[in-house]
């Protein structure tokens, strides 16, 4: 059994030697624990991850369950909602009967069982863990983040709007990166956390980098190169951070036809940034997580400065808004 601390929550992996167990230990890498969370008022939450032979072991009384609905998330993972007799929260089944995950949420704990052996299974388990973390009171954002001059920024945008290239431009300009893809935010402290080891870059994004980095033989997964933060930060003489407070939320807009050196910061309303945040967060499965997310997004929108950043197709250095003329 292995336990990993994720912002004052315990992720207990009962089968650390399994493929999923090894993936989770590599993925979280113990980087997300942080002494700053000691002051957080969030109570402890335990997430147990257990390998199970078959789905039948979990539901020996199928007549007591009722299949309610199905939705599909990233990687085309199907989610089924099961109502179980005498249980307050439903049980969610992610994946399939031969390769999937069940997620049960209690007041102060979550139980995740997984079965099967397909390559996507670790990612399905990860999706369930993210749901459990949302249920515990954290906000999970699909966004990039970096800081400069003691100010933390979150960059929001749909796929293709340039989150990754904006982060690369920021790193090249001396910003400290936090995350390229996913951030966990503790709303009690307004601290954002990142734990990725590498930035995943499409070949086109790799062109943003200087030649020595561009021509390096980086690992490739699916169609993306994995460029370690350490390599990027060493080369561009900046420092990776795993945690900082958020002051600014930035809605990205990319004008691919614009060949000028466009980098225009404009302040926008709390309503506009709230809508962008919801598009980034997505809708959590449980009602409690939905209510938490609504509270946290409201707080984030009220306490941060909201910006729209319009970028052209020239990958020039990225200046923060206060440096604009």
């Amino acid at each position: 059994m292995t336990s990993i601390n994720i912002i004052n929550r315990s992720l207990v992996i009962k089968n650390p030697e399994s493929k999923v167990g090894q993936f989770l230990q590599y993925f979280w890498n113990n980087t997300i624990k942080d002494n700053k969370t000691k002051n957080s008022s969030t109570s402890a939450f335990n997430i147990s991850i257990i390998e199970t032979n078959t789905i039948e072991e979990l539901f020996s009384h199928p007549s007591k369950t009722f299949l309610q609905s199905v939705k599909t998330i990233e990687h085309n993972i199907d989610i089924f909602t099961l109502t179980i007799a005498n249980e307050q929260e439903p049980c969610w089944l992610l994946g399939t009967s031969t390769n999937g995950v069940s997620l049960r949420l209690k007041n102060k704990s979550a139980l995740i069982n997984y079965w099967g052996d397909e390559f996507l299974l670790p990612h399905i388990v990860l999706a369930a863990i993210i749901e459990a973390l949302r249920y515990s009171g954290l906000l999970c954002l699909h966004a990039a983040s970096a800081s400069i001059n003691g100010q933390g920024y979150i960059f929001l945008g749909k796929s293709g709007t340039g989150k990754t290239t904006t982060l690369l431009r920021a790193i090249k300009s001396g910003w400290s990166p936090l995350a390229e893809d996913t951030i966990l935010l503790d709303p009690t402290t307004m601290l954002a956390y990142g734990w990725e080891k590498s930035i995943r870059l499409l070949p086109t994004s790799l062109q943003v980098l200087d030649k020595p980095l561009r021509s390096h033989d980086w690992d490739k997964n699916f169609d993306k190169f994995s460029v370690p933060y350490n390599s990027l930060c060493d080369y561009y003489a900046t420092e990776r951070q795993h945690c900082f407070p958020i002051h600014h939320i930035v809605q990205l807009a990319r004008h691919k036809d614009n060949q000028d050196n466009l980098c225009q910061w404009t302040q926008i309303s709390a309503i506009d940034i709230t809508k962008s945040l919801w598009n980034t967060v997505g809708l959590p499965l449980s009602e409690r997580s939905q209510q938490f997310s609504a509270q946290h997004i409201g707080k984030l929108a009220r306490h941060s400065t909201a910006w729209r950043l319009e970028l052209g197709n020239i990958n020039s250095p990225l200046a923060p808004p206060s440096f604009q003329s």
Partner: protein
Amino acid sequence: MTYTITKGIIETDLENELVLLHPENRNMYSLNETGRIIWKNLESLGFEGAINQVLKEYDTTKEQAMRDAEKLLQELIQANFISISKAT
């Protein structure tokens, strides 16, 4: 008439304004300060009661407040954020 807020609508409170999120179709709708008052009081106080709450807090005429509220409610009904039924 009885107004009923659709079950599961998620409210994000920005203090003076409110963003509504429909859990089924993910549509979002933002309410300004007076719209927020109408929304918060519509189910419990009904249309007239919600209008009176607006008049208590804002310097406007009843006719203007009713016109604005009717327009808002039409949009919210059309977007399936609320439903309307005849009072029994």
